[in-house]
């Protein structure tokens, strides 16, 4: 029953879970520090040295606050909303290859929880059901602003999913596989997909911003128009779950972008520096996390640089710019594959 493989998998799952939560926690701190840096302020600096305990203080505050459930809202769905948002945010981490194989006492263990035959599509499916947390929460709040936020979220996510899927199709055409493990392995060394699919990457990252509801596409929680958007009625840790899910989504989106386009755990000269395979695997994990942190920083950088879109501008960008561009990218990829094969 308790084979070494199973024990390793359980340890891997638990450590990914903990790492995800810690990174999401410190992303909130990081975001405030980045914002402060960009606006020439100091940012949080009271709790602990450099304010390093600020996320813990925020967490305690979230738990201690009074919990309000609106009287006429649907209680079950009101509680289900944030739970769903959190669950779907955590689900994608199961198929991301965090590193190549690691060798313990003569047995190879893969640093990936499971390698699905349909890897990329699984990411896509989880993203597409991620909207339910927001929609159910927004509707159950029984508040017009919440409902408007939920509707904005759903139409925004459906619109950008199409362009995202088309960008992924072009990527699959050039890699020839759906499995994230094989996509990672094929980018060994410096053969990163970004050099093969620059246009696809551009479309994919723009859509990632829209799918994670981050600025400049944070229309569902646009403060100037909708109070707090879909989480207007939420308080205490339920609000915390929604905010937390956004940071987890950002972390996972960064991990997916790094895996699909930036070589995953691969780094230049990985096979020629003459280290043992375990050392290379561990170094690969470090490199993957370095890439992920860069993209998390990129998400914050954009948020504090580019102003929010208007809703009609957002829709026009999605339908009349990104989708045609993605279709053009597919045609281009197909033409290049056809030309190189002949």
């Amino acid at each position, binding site marked *: 029953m308790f084979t070494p493989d199973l024990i390793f998998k359980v340890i891997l799952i638990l450590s990914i879970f903990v790492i995800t939560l810690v990174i999401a926690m410190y992303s909130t701190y990081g975001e405030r520090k980045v914002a402060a840096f960009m606006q020439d302020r100091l940012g949080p600096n009271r709790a602990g040295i450099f304010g390093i305990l600020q996320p813990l203080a925020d967490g305690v505050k979230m738990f201690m606050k009074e919990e309000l459930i609106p009287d006429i809202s649907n209680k079950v769905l009101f509680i289900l909303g944030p739970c769903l948002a959190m669950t779907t945010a955590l689900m994608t981490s199961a198929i991301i290859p965090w590193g190549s194989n690691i060798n313990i006492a003569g047995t190879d263990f893969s640093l990936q929880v499971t390698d699905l035959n349909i890897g990329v599509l699984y990411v896509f499916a989880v993203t597409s059901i991620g909207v339910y947390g927001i929609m159910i929460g927004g509707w159950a709040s029984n508040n017009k602003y919440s409902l408007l936020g939920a*509707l904005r979220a759903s139409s925004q996510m459906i619109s950008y999913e199409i362009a995202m899927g088309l960008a992924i199709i072009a990527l699959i055409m050039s890699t020839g596989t759906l499995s994230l493990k094989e996509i990672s392995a094929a980018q060994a060394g410096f053969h990163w997909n970004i050099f093969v699919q620059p246009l696809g990457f551009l479309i994919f990252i723009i859509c990632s911003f829209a799918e994670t509801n981050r600025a400049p596409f944070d229309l569902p929680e646009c403060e100037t128009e909708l109070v707090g958007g879909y989480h207007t009625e939420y308080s205490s840790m339920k609000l915390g779950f929604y905010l937390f899910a956004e940071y987890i989504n950002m972390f996972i989106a960064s991990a997916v972008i790094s895996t699909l386009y930036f070589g995953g755990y691969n780094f230049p000269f990985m096979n020629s520096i003459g280290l043992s395979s375990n050392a290379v695997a561990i170094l690969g994990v470090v490199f993957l996390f370095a890439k992920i942190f860069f993209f998390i920083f990129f998400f914050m950088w954009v948020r504090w640089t580019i102003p929010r879109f208007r809703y009609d501008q957002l829709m026009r960008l999605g339908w009349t710019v990104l989708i045609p561009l993605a279709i053009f990218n597919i045609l281009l990829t197909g033409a290049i594959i056809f030309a190189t094969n002949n």
Partner: protein
Amino acid sequence: MTQFLFYFLSFVAVSAGLMVITAKNPVHSVLYLIIAFFAIAGHYILLNAQFLAIVHIIVYAGAIMVLFLSVIMLLNLNKDNEPAKSNVLKLAAVVAAGLLLVTFSGTLKGTESIIASQPFDDQIGYVKALGKVLFNDFLLPFEVSALLLLSAIIGAVVLVKHDLK
């Protein structure tokens, strides 16, 4: 294990399906329908048809039901403003559903001989096998259905554009 999962998923699918028609609130109906879709996707996975399962979730749970849900949320349906249905309409609905039942039982009646003549291939659900079957053996139906979808897209654009002359 597989058998237990099959009965569990079937139970979930059937009870969620019943809840879809008995639930008072339309939004609850939609949510039960989503649960039913997930249970059916689980059945596909039991048959090793991973691709079909995930596409089922992406298309039905991820796109169509989201649209359903947002439309129903906007309409704000409840008992008070629901139009009363005439008896003729109810009778027509019963007849239509009964005919559907006849069609289903007729289709499923002959399956035992098909299963015997074509044994289950556990590789068929994988993307590679499916792609080969689609583009070699069933190319014409595949292209025709693509054309059908294309015409649906064009139809939607034409319906939306009022000033199209």
